[in-house]
């Protein structure tokens, strides 16, 4: 090895954990719905809140949730973050905005990204809609929703989002 090489100042020390994740009953039903282009939530029988993706129980009331509710693929941004720092595991071009979207009819926001929108225009209360992959590519994965894009509807006032932020 040549002596002109620079001294070593850092080393790669990757960590890797390999799991097999089971989605369970409620989230599997949700994912099968996604594969058909539908977004299914579940309503708590006690507090009536609608959860999406559903986990089969209400974390507030600690009761099982069974009633299925089909939700719109339109929603409202409740909060967002602009990602500017690269990471080996992110394949979306930087910078991009990750967002929480409260789907119409839901009481819990979902995590996604926003595109087709200048970053400086993104704001709480902004109305967005899911952009799906082509029908023949739909599958039981959240990757079936490519991203959310802005739609021409008036903003939802921040006060109405208070409970979900």
């Amino acid at each position: 090895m040549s002596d002109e090489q620079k001294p070593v100042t850092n080393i790669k020390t990757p960590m890797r954990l390999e799991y097999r994740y089971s989605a369970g009953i409620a989230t599997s039903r949700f994912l099968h719905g996604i594969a058909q282009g539908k977004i299914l939530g579940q309503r708590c029988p006690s507090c009536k809140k609608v959860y999406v993706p559903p986990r089969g129980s209400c974390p507030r009331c600690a009761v099982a949730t069974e009633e299925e509710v089909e939700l719109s693929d339109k929603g409202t941004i409740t909060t967002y973050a602009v990602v500017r720092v690269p990471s080996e595991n992110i394949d979306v071009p930087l910078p991009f905005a990750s967002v929480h979207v409260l789907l119409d009819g839901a009481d819990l926001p979902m995590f996604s990204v926003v595109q087709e929108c200048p970053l400086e225009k993104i704001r709480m209360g902004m109305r967005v809609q899911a952009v799906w992959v082509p029908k023949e590519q739909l599958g039981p994965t959240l990757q079936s929703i490519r991203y959310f894009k802005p739609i021409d509807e008036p903003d939802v006032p921040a006060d109405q989002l208070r409970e979900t932020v």
Partner: protein
Amino acid sequence: MSETVSDEGGILTAPHVLEYPYRRSVGPVLGRFFTELRAGKLVGVRTQQGRVLVPPQEYDPETGAATTSDFVEVGPGGIVTTWSWVTKPRAKQPLAHSFAWALVKLDGADTAMLHAVDAGDIARMRTGMRVRPRWRAERVGHIHDIECFEPEAAR
């Protein structure tokens, strides 16, 4: 859809990999160790009491005092001070077949360092056995520049 997703009675399961691609700063003392490894050499550092620590450390773990700037070439051979046999190695371990994790005290060192020993068979492993490094041809300045240690008697 990925064929690795499976559906049993409507319940979906899929592989989930959690990976942190860390890069760690090593500082001047371990930095020297890795730089020398890249050149195919093993070095330790001398403590104020005169002991040689391998891998070198910035502080003497016995006294807490800073170590000296005296780097000492050690090895390449050494002895196994303790070991544990791995029957079925996992994907990212140094060897694909059974091997031993061992503490190796290199010639001229006062401390032992952890590495893999490729003994082929557990029957060949014993405390006190002499081993030497098997170097990689392409070295980058990482502990894996030594593929593993192997019994000196092998050749």
